């Protein structure tokens, strides 16, 4: 069943490793059930390092795969109990977990086993979630079912977050209520789920004095309205298709981004408006942007998109470039903000014409990579949870 609502889930997560460990003992797994339903599992393996990483990876993978396939929770828990390797020093197989099952982005089923309770911020305020307890395989498991609303923010975390500052800044660690209050201040800003999890973990790391005493993981889920966005790049391989490509592109709902000099010239002719190129270089390596009345953003092509791809890969990793692209005035930063933060549904219109000048082997960038760049960018955007459609001309 497909839902006709306009909501979608922006999912972002991040982890901090226990000081000195190369592997994280927490793991997040996301499985899509259908277009609008998703299972997210956050698992925290016993201990830290390799052992914990194996336990949490197995747990989250098994639960997400089984639930997404429609199996009962009881079966998942039994499978984990029967599958997890038993820790030789402690004699138990153990991984705590939090499951968020989003149904049509209008209902969330929250299933929790021993992780800090999920925080829900609604209208900017933390809201308590009533839960019912159920014993499965000797484990006390809490279930909650909540109807979601636009702008709801769900925060799932491992206990490494609430333990931050124990004995140091706070006597008993960072309490869940404190975390909720801390995050309430960021709810209004409209940050993405990834940025929100980064913010929470930066504070966690600060409370640990940069030396986390445990693996700490945060998964944020933001329920937001769908926002379509369209990006046009490259002239069509057959010149006669200019008109067709432009009319399809401009016929789409949402903002319009055009990348590439020749492409924007064609668009300007189609719209019968002047194309004005800027001469300012806010970022010395990125060519200036341009303006066409009726187009939301006009930039240069490959060099700019190459940078956007770097930002996208970094966003999915540790998001350390955030400060550059979140404020930058250059074309790449502007595209990054529109695609990563604003858009939820992105249409790529890719023209496959070959520019003879780009075949010059002396140039430092291989322009044949253009199509490949867009493919990689589309892939990153899908990993950010966005719907992406690419059409070639």
């Amino acid at each position: 069943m497909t839902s006709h609502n306009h909501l979608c889930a922006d999912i972002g997560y991040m982890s901090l490793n226990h000081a000195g460990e190369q592997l994280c003992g927490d793991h997040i797994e996301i499985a899509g059930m259908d277009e609008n339903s998703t299972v997210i599992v956050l698992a925290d393996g016993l201990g830290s390092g390799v052992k914990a990483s194996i336990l949490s990876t197995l747990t989250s993978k098994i639960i997400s795969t089984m639930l997404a396939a429609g199996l009962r929770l009881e079966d998942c828990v039994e499978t984990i109990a029967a599958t997890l390797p038993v820790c030789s020093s402690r004699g138990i197989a153990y991984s705590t977990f939090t499951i968020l099952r989003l149904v049509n982005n209008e209902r969330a089923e929250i299933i929790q086993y021993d992780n800090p309770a999920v925080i829900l911020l609604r209208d900017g305020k933390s809201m308590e979630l009533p839960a019912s307890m159920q014993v499965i395989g000797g484990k006390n498991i809490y279930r909650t079912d909540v109807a979601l609303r636009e702008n709801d923010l769900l925060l799932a975390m491992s206990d490494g977050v609430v333990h931050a500052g124990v004995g140091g800044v706070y006597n008993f660690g960072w309490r869940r209520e404190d975390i909720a209050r801390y995050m309430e201040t960021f709810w209004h800003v409209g940050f993405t789920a990834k940025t929100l999890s980064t913010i929470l973990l930066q504070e966690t790391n600060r409370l640990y004095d940069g030396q986390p005493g445990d693996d700490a993981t945060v998964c944020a889920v933001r329920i937001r309205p769908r926002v379509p966005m369209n990006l046009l790049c490259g002239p069509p391989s057959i010149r006669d298709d200019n008109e067709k490509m432009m009319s399809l592109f401009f016929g789409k709902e949402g903002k319009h981004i055009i990348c590439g000099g020749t492409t924007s010239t064609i668009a300007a002719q189609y719209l019968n408006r002047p194309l004005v190129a800027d001469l300012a270089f806010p970022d010395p390596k990125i060519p200036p942007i341009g303006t066409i009345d009726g187009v939301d953003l006009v930039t240069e092509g490959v060099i700019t998109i190459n940078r956007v791809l770097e930002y996208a890969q970094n966003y999915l990793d540790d998001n350390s470039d955030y400060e550059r692209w979140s404020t930058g005035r250059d074309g790449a930063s502007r595209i990054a903000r529109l695609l990563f933060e604003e858009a939820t549904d992105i249409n790529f219109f890719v023209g496959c014409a070959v520019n003879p000048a780009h075949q010059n082997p002396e140039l430092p960038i291989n322009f044949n990579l253009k199509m490949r760049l867009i493919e990689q960018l589309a892939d990153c955007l899908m990993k950010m949870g966005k719907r992406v459609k690419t059409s070639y001309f």
Partner: protein
Amino acid sequence: MNITVCIGSSCHLKGSRAVVEKLERLIFERGLKDEIALCGSFCMGQCQTGVSVLLDDAYFSLTPESTERFFVQAVLPKIAKAKPELVEIPQL
């Protein structure tokens, strides 16, 4: 008078930013801000010979190194023709 510098991908990689900065400096030094409009253009379709520059309608192929020569040999004489009182052409 208009000077248009191509800032398309190819010309960018060949140094259009340095050309723009040099021209901005030369125009400023000679106090010709009111005489010359410096603007950018996306791909002029002459990528092979970039950095592409238009002086009004005349096409020039520049590099950052040849920019000053272009300014002295092409831009200044053009201004001198219209307003001789404004420029003094140095010998290069």
